[in-house]
């Protein structure tokens, strides 16, 4: 676990430095590839049915999704590992 944290820390530091010095605008490939090329052919994205892409609302729903998803992953991981304990 300690080795993983060291490795993750080094990788993230390298990534942060490279992000700071890279000239890209960090748009997603849906924007920089899919929507760009579709736009060139006359197809444009329309507003989604439930549009959460308004101000910081999108950050909030992504944070919520991360919390719920992370909780569920941890919960089920624990269930799997407890299953092992019960067998032994």
């Amino acid at each position, binding site marked *: 676990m300690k080795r993983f944290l060291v490795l993750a820390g080094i990788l993230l530091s390298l990534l942060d430095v490279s992000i700071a010095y890279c000239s890209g605008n960090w748009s997603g490939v849906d924007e920089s590839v899919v929507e760009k090329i579709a736009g060139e*052919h006359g197809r444009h994205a329309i507003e989604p049915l*439930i549009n959460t892409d308004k101000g910081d609302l*999108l950050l909030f729903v992504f944070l919520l999704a991360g919390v719920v998803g992370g909780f569920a*992953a941890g919960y089920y991981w624990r269930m799997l590992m407890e299953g092992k304990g019960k067998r032994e």
Partner: protein
Amino acid sequence: MLNILFCIGLLLLATPAHAMHISEGILPLPWAALWFAVAVPFVAIGLHNLKVLAKDDLSWKPLVGLLAAVVFVISCMPIPVPTAGTCSHPCGTGMTAILVGPFISALIASVALLIQALFLAHGGLSTWGADIVSMGIAGSFAGYMVFKAFRTIGAGLAVSAFAAGLLSDWATYLTTSVELASGIRGDSPFLPLLGKIVIAFIPTQLPLGILEGAMTAGMVVLLYRKRPDLLMKMRVIKAEEMPA
């Protein structure tokens, strides 16, 4: 200190994901309907398989729950790719296909994609079918078949899982390119447009596929160390490969 650095790094990366999912309205309705028609049987078989397996063995439920949560989180997690200056996300379907099979993996991806389309402005409802086909079906089947092929020729668990993750990611983006090129081309020739889209994806997806391979190998090896019995039950490893 390392933990704090790790958390700061994660916070700096935390932005809404915009990646392979095809957004609402990009595909013309007939093409969107076609991809729905392709996706439905795979998802239906996945649902049937899950019901049958969960009835006989309760340990499938937490495993499928874990994989669903992992696929949901990582498929909306933007990863900055410094070589391209863009962001994209892994898919996780190679990993799920290895562990629970390609049909259940397609079902898991369809649920993750629906939630993302409904609440995260990520993908679209009209393009849900196309996104299931690229991420759920192409990604899962590519990952599953590559893993089985590598195991058949005697490759180790980690190497096979790495190759499966890598190629499932690339297969997903190749399929997205096909869907996009066929849907938007109008009178333009198909192959040059397909080539243009694939080439545009390469700077981001080439390194990201390697990351996806590493994540897939890491997850499979972790499960092998913690619950090898599960892997044997799911026919990922053979009885003679069980650790002593």
